[in-house]
């Protein structure tokens, strides 16, 4: 058993840290958070350095690393700034589906621009009238007419909806089959395809630099070429996809927690009350020590889940534990960071209130915490 990052992995973390130290300026985050805009320039800069294509293979311009290295990058991005970090690390959301299940032509078309940072992608599962937690039945349908598939329906809460150059969408291709998830198929749809309409959702609580939107498919016509993987395998691909990307969400949570903790720790050494730095008041000091412990535990769970996947031993229970625990720790830590800064913590300029608002999403998207607990329970019951 080894609990150390390799020299190379430490180098990766440091590279991201240095980039963020200079580029992730608080003013930018505050402005984009207010305007609800994606940090396109930073995304492109990060992509040029390889930070957004860690697990894509060299042949498509990626870096050829695993999920663990990907998580190290995500963690550092989100530590440096929760809002900019999430946005930059989600710019290629959904592209993994093309990487894993796409055919050669699809990979060649979409992956190199994704790795270069020229493309943004999206993945659309959630629908307004169907619980996002339960994607076993889709109201969005793809129906075959001759050589064409006509897609109809609405997806909501789609990350990058309005800025994506392409998106992968989960549809119901067989409406009669039972169970219904055996009739779901993934399609890749290009931006600008006739009948595809996206609108931005406003006033999110957090991750406001990450664009979220609604996507309407009104007789969007595609062909067999656009099917990702095999027909009617979409549900399985999606579940497997989330088993991996969820570790990335855990890494977002660990990064946010770490970032907020560092702000709070530093502040607590400087701010004095009743004649001593507030960290010397045990209510503050011990809590910060407890949170540091929890963050470390969350980090280890996250790294382990990523390591298992890289080792070809994917364990959905480990993934679910990591995401659920890390996101809870992120909520607790960012909350206490505000508390540590007192009134200043409540002001945007001091950053931690934003970390707190941003952290909340990690308990919701890519499987809510309740669903993660159900997953853990399912596997526990199988084991014991």
């Amino acid at each position, binding site marked *: 058993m080894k609990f150390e990052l390799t020299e190379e992995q430490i*180098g990766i973390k440091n590279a991201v840290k240095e980039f963020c130290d200079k580029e992730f300026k608080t003013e930018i985050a505050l402005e984009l958070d207010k305007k609800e805009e994606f940090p396109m320039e930073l995304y492109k800069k990060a992509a040029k350095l390889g*930070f957004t294509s860690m697990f894509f293979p060299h042949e498509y311009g990626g870096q050829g*690393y695993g999920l663990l290295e990907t998580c190290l990058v995500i963690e550092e991005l989100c530590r440096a700034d929760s809002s900019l970090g999430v946005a930059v690390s989600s710019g290629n959301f959904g592209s993994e589906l093309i990487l894993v299940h796409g055919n050669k032509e699809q990979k060649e078309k979409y992956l190199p621009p994704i790795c270069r940072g020229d493309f943004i992608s999206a993945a659309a599962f959630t629908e307004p009238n169907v619980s996002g937690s339960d994607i076993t039945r889709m109201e969005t349908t793809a129906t075959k007419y001759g050589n064409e598939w006509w897609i109809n329906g609405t997806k909501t809460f789609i990350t990058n909806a309005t800025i994506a150059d392409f998106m992968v969408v989960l549809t119901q291709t067989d409406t009669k089959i039972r169970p219904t998830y055996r009739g779901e198929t993934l399609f890749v749809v290009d931006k600008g395809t006739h009948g595809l309409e996206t609108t931005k959702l406003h006033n999110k609580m957090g991750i406001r630099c990450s664009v979220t939107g609604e996507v309407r498919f009104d007789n969007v016509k595609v062909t067999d070429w656009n099917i990702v993987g095999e027909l009617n395998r979409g549900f399985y691909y999606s579940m497997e996809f989330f088993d991996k990307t969820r570790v990335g969400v855990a890494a977002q949570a660990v990064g946010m927690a770490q970032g907020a903790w560092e702000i709070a720790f530093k502040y607590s050494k400087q701010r004095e009350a009743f004649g001593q730095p507030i960290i010397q008041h045990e209510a503050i000091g011990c809590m910060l020590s407890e949170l540091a412990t929890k963050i470390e535990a969350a980090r280890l769970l996250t790294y382990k889940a990523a390591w298992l996947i890289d080792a070809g031993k994917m364990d959905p229970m480990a993934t679910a534990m990591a995401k659920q625990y890390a996101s809870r720790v992120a909520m607790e830590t960012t909350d206490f960071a505000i508390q540590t800064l007192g009134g200043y913590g409540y002001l945007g300029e001091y950053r931690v209130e934003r970390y707190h608002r941003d952290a909340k999403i990690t308990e919701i998207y890519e499987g809510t915490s309740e669903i993660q607990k159900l997953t853990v329970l399912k596997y526990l019951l199988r084991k014991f």
Partner: protein
Amino acid sequence: MDVIVCVKQVPETAEAELKIDASGKKIEKTGLVFDINEWDDYALEEAVRIKEKFGGTVTAITVGPEDSDSTLRKCLARGADKAIRLTDPKFEGSDAFATAKILHSVIKTMHFDLILTGAQAGDDGSAVVGPVLAELLGVPHAAMVKKIELGEGKAVVNRELEGGLEERLEVKLPALFAVQTGINEPRYVSIMGIRKAMQKEIKVMRLSDTGLNESEVGESGSWLKIEKLYVPPVEKQAEFLQGSPDEIATKIVEILKSRGLI
């Protein structure tokens, strides 16, 4: 152009709380973060830019402990081709002169057109390793260099002087330039760079590889010995200026002028 860059790993001290260790001669290293010396960062970048423009090689070389590898890897990741680490327990306690001798012992056996160093190191700030090394090698040098233009067998460099002045010199190559910050904008380390760096070798050399003997390095080979390290006492010298805002402003200007600050 074959360029050698001398680099040093130093603690980041801008925000750290420094403590002096029990010996009273060194700072406590635990808890400090180490990184490439800021000035060397610019020197390395300048070297890589020269290589990209004129071809040739860049070799990064350091005298330091094993963990200086992370600084060398960073140099390799940013475009250096080779790295050499000079490590030996006997090197400990070397002052600038002894350090220059160690560097000299290796560099004299290598081909180079140019040697770049940082103008100073962020930890001891002595700013003489570069010039001493140049003297030992018998090559011309310029320090506080803010701009380098390379020509046939010569270079034209701008040196930073006091009071915002710059001096322009023509220097015969091979030469050594001690680089000032701001000469360029160092690039970020990329993931592609890291991968390449991991495939390159860091050559480790010990005292026995340098041809020097024990008495020439470390404390015994040094001209300077640190007697004591201490935090300067905080002085409280405050002068309250009185008068109307105009009068106060005039006095402030006078004071600043008299100290040569404006």
